[in-house]
């Protein structure tokens, strides 16, 4: 089941990349296409952050992860490199669970 999903999604992602190189340029000139392409990642990433911070299974929860995400936000504001941001979030979350 996981294998099938991995292969299907990989094939789809590759097809999208190839289509981009193969399709006439004027499609990009449609402002709606540009807007949708810019806004879908924003919506998806925001949803992933919300779900993975505030839910466990089907329950909405507030736990140590929130402190980790807050710390990550501070790191981002301080222009920390990507990996530092992720490490800070994990470290703060782990620390709070230890207390």
């Amino acid at each position, binding site marked *: *089941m*996981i294998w099938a*999903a*991995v*292969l*299907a*999604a*990989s*094939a*789809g*992602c*590759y097809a*999208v*990349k*190839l289509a*981009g*190189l*193969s*399709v006439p*340029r004027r499609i*990009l000139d449609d*402002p*709606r296409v*540009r*807007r*949708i*392409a*810019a*806004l*879908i990642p*924003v*919506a*998806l*990433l*925001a*949803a*992933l*952050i*919300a*779900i*993975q*911070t505030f839910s466990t*299974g*089907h*329950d*909405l929860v507030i736990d140590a*992860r929130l402190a*980790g*995400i807050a710390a*990550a936000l501070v790191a*981002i504001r301080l222009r920390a490199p*990507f*990996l530092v*941001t*992720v490490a800070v*979030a*994990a470290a703060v*979350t782990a*620390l709070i*669970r230890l207390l």
Partner: protein
Amino acid sequence: MIRNALGIGVATGAYALSFGALSVAAGLNVAETCALSLLMFTGASQFALIGVVGSGGNPFAGAAGALLLGVRNGLYGLRLSPLLDVRGVRRLGTAQLVIDESTAMAIAQPNGPLGRVAFYSTGLAIYVLWNLGTLVGALAGRAISNPADFGLDAAAPAAFLALLAPRMEGREQWVVALVAGAVALASVPFVPAGVPVLLAAVVGFAFGLWPGASSLPVEPSTREPA
């Protein structure tokens, strides 16, 4: 420029370490994890898929989320095709390298030949180091019995936050992000795992159809990883 490419490759390789470890923690095995990096090769989509699997969702819901996040690579391809001008068999290999960093590096160059060098050097450096990092991270991840003890369940949303931050350029992005996040959370108790993310994509799509004042750029930021 080659040094830049290697630098970005090393940075994303380190990012791949966390992907490999989180993927194994989410319940994929090492082979499935490596297959994602070899075949899908677009970081945010890979994280989205393992996120859904890790939260107990249907892997195909994760695959749909991964595919939607991958749509931006298609737009990068549109932007790159006049610059790269690849045909035939070479286009098949080139396509796999169309990701955030290679696109950002290519379009930042002053002319076509430099842009092509930047695209291939960045793309290939990242491809090699991303896959190496994934393998090492996945093998290391197997040694961790409870990912939550190390705060690894907060690492993925922090990674998404770092990917989202450079995109928050205007009021419109904030509105979409807040509505999408709220819709996703509100639906979590009632729908199968993975579906809330797809509902959020519908929010993004709907706002995109809305006739807005500005047409948004599709250029990737150099600050965000694969």
